[in-house]
């Protein structure tokens, strides 16, 4: 039941080679065996087995979907009714969500089996999963290395096959960077493609849910059931969801792939550059045209991102005040004490850092110089991408400057940590879809390549990723978890 795609597992379920209950139990056993990876915060074994039973009935009745009975898991940022939803924070360690996120509801409706809730950086703020209240996730390829973040639990769970496929969220690279570090595929769709209702907000104008799995095709299948307009999310977009699998096998002949010269500089590690060059060669062989492009404003992406994301988070996280839910300090002396101690005791360092930065950026007298300026930069970056997409169909770039670094290595230097997201952040500012797929190994650690598509052109993005995965086998490699 290991090393199989969603389609293969769905066939196995229909052919009664195994039941969903057996498949679910198999994954639950693996989760228990590899708890040292720290991929899960909560495992909902009983509910999963019940869901698997229902899935088996549905499969037998002949009205199953591809995902019916498939064991998957959610990043712990998605609210799951009656199940603890922590967002990786002590603040929500006691929070049982009273409702399901739209994404959870939609996936439940397909009959997919939810195994539990995946570890993540606290409130999705981090690039290494080390800011989680529940501890760092270990990289299945090397347990001394980080899994990346913030969807570190999601990426590690897929890499270690502790779930067939998973949900993640991406605010500045939180799906793509851990996918690259753990050697799995992940797609962050266009902003507005997947409902944010019930997805705990970090930076509302940048957050976007997406899918992660062992192949582009599996990402497409999962995304298909997540995407769509939601009346409960005003920023979700009311356009039809195309069949993401329809064009997977389309030829790449004549497809124009752009290489932004600003992304291929000496900052890219030499081994990384070599891996990317080889991938470019593969694309040439597949018939794609490679074209150098320029996006001069990309260099401003990181500062603009940290102003906007911090500003929004400083406001989004105000609701955690110890009054209605979540952590409350003991014996507050008065209201001010209740606020300061509840927040002071339950938020981690990185979250506090960003709340402070954001509060500062929005303060009277600083708003124009920081927030407004960052929004102007954001528009310039979007314009750069618009210009680029008038010349090419897809943009190709690194995902990260290096493979996964070691746990603890960058904790002391937040700016260095922020720079790890240099290739992914601009895409969130522009709201574009992008994906990360495995493109090789450096020193036993996976590296990824990034494909960026035009607005709502996920179909093309998945086609270009899938084509590469038909001629390479990086994505089918599995780590040895028993050393």
């Amino acid at each position, binding site marked *: 039941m290991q090393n199989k795609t969603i389609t293969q597992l769905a066939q196995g379920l229909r052919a009664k080679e195994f039941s969903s209950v057996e498949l679910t139990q198999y994954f639950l056993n693996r989760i228990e065996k590899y708890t040292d990876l720290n991929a899960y915060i909560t495992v909902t074994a009983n509910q999963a087995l019940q869901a698997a039973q229902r899935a088996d009935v549905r499969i037998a009745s002949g009205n199953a979907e591809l995902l019916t009975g498939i064991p998957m898991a959610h990043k712990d940022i998605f609210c799951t009714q009656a199940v603890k*939803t922590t967002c990786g924070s002590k603040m929500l360690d006691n929070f049982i969500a009273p409702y399901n996120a739209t994404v959870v509801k939609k996936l439940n409706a397909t009959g997919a089996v939810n195994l539990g809730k995946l570890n993540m950086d606290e409130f999705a703020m981090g690039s290494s999963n080390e800011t989680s209240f529940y501890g760092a996730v270990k990289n299945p390829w090397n347990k001394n290395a980080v899994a990346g973040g913030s969807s570190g639990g999601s990426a590690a769970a897929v890499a270690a096959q502790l779930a067939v496929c998973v949900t993640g969220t991406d605010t500045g690279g939180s799906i793509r960077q851990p996918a690259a570090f753990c050697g799995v595929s992940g797609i962050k769709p266009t902003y507005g493609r997947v409902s944010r209702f019930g997805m705990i907000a970090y930076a*509302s104008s940048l957050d976007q849910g997406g899918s992660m799995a062992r192949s582009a095709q599996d990402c497409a299948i999962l995304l298909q059931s997540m995407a769509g307009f939601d009346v409960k999310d005003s920023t979700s977009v009311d356009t039809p969801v195309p069949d993401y699998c329809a064009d997977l096998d389309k030829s790449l002949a004549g497809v124009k792939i752009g290489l932004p010269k600003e992304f291929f500089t000496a900052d890219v590690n030499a081994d990384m550059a070599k891996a990317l060059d080889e991938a470019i060669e593969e694309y040439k062989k597949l018939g794609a045209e490679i074209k150098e492009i320029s996006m001069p404003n990309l260099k401003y992406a990181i500062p603009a991102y940290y102003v906007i994301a911090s500003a929004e988070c400083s406001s989004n996280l105000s609701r955690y005040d110890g009054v209605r839910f979540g952590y409350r300090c003991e014996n507050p002396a008065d209201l001010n004490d209740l606020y300061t101690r509840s927040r002071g005791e339950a938020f981690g360092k990185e979250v506090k850092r960003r709340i402070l930065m954001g509060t500062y950026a*929005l*303060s009277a007298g600083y*708003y124009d110089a920081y927030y407004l300026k960052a929004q102007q930069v954001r528009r310039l970056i979007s314009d750069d991408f618009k210009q680029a997409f008038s010349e090419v169909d897809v943009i190709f770039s690194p995902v990260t400057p290096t493979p996964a670094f070691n746990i603890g290595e960058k904790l002391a230097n937040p700016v260095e940590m922020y720079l790890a997201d240099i290739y992914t952040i601009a895409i969130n500012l522009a709201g574009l879809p992008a994906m990360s797929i495995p493109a090789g190994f450096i020193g036993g650690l996976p590296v990824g390549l990034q494909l960026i598509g035009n607005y709502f052109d996920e179909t093309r993005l998945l086609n270009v990723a899938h084509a590469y995965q038909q001629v390479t086998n990086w994505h089918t490699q599995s780590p040895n978890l028993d050393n």
Partner: protein
Amino acid sequence: MNTQWEAVIGLEIHTQLATKSKIFSGASTTYGAEPNTQACIISLGMPGVLPVLNEDAVRKAVTFGMAINAEIAPYSVFARKNYFYPDLPKGYQISQFELPIVGKGFLDIDVDGETKRIGVTRAHLEEDAGKSLHENFHGLSGIDLNRAGTPLLEIVSEPDMRTAKEAVAYMRKLHELVRYLEICDGNMQEGSFRCDANVSVRPKGQAEFGTRAEIKNINSFKFVEKAINHEIERQIELIENGGTVVQETRLYDSVKDETRSMRSKEEANDYRYFPDPDLLPVFISDELKSEIKAHLPELPEEKKLRFKTDYHLNDESATILTSSRDVANYFEEVVKLSHCESTICANWITGELSAALNRADLDISDSPIDATRFAGLVARIADDTISGKIGKQVFEFLWNTADSADDIIEKQGLKQITDTGAIEAIIDTILVANEKQAQQYRDGNEKMFGFFVGQVMKAMQGKGNPAEINKILKIKLS
């Protein structure tokens, strides 16, 4: 007020829009439910929830803007006003800041027979907070979030008012308007219509404004007038004694009739406004504007003018009868059903009925006498079946029973006596019994005529036709 000083007053009025559900969620807005029973996950600010704008709130805001001849922003933006308070669940209030939905407009008020135009700077949509309850919680505070997320339209005036009287006139006018437009129930006890007043004073003739104080949350016309007057006096006294007014927020204490400091400018929050990324900008199309305009009801001014022309009413009656849509509708209904002169209908509504409603503290919509039964009364007065005096008796029966005016007149035998023979006979008896008074009249004491009318009426138990009595008396006394 001291004649050397002039006050400058601007009002911020929060009107609760009468939508069925909250501004950003489907939770009910009904007043008076058990605490927190109308607080859905969105009202509670649960992790992960998102606001969705209630279109009806937008329509009501646009309706208001059109009624005050204001610019309607083709594009407006919701912003977050960030501050911590236990009854503010998200730690920010969704409001509008730089780009409000309603721009500059105006309202004309009448004070002491003069019309004055008061500018409206802007009106913006926002959500209300919940309520903190400090009693009965043994040193703790209770939070009721039923009100959290109720739509408000905050209407900000220009500092165009110079006296508390003008401020009250403006507030009343606005109160009348929002009820006319049916965008707000106007219930001040329930907080549907609340006022903050910005007050400053300056020496007469000075162009610059003085430093202002803001008086928060005043919820009656009476208190607005008292609070402003008190604040004006306080500021003048302060300056005359060598002090300076500080910019601050003050609370009006209606029990002590004074304002006291709540927080100074230094202690004021930095609200860190920024556009709410969860909500899209609001676009108001020309089509929507024309559609709303087409459904705009007749406004008080227009209605008053029409009442004066069509119903030949004087200014006072027209003002009273157009003070609310319910009163106006009642009047027009009575005119229609009674088929009689509109001035009689007007007099009886503004007189007898208004007085009775006032005494019982009832709105006309809750009047025990509906328009149909009231029309029955007016019709009988107009066709001389009963006199005005008897009309008052019939009114009492109408108020206390469910009978029609005709049934009452019949049952109580109140029909007016117009039979000249019967009247003559009574007059003859009275003249005989009052020989002396008759002589006095004939000697030129005209007051005596009234005496005789009274005597006759008394003898006829008020049922005599006054015109006939006058006519016959004149003849008999001459």
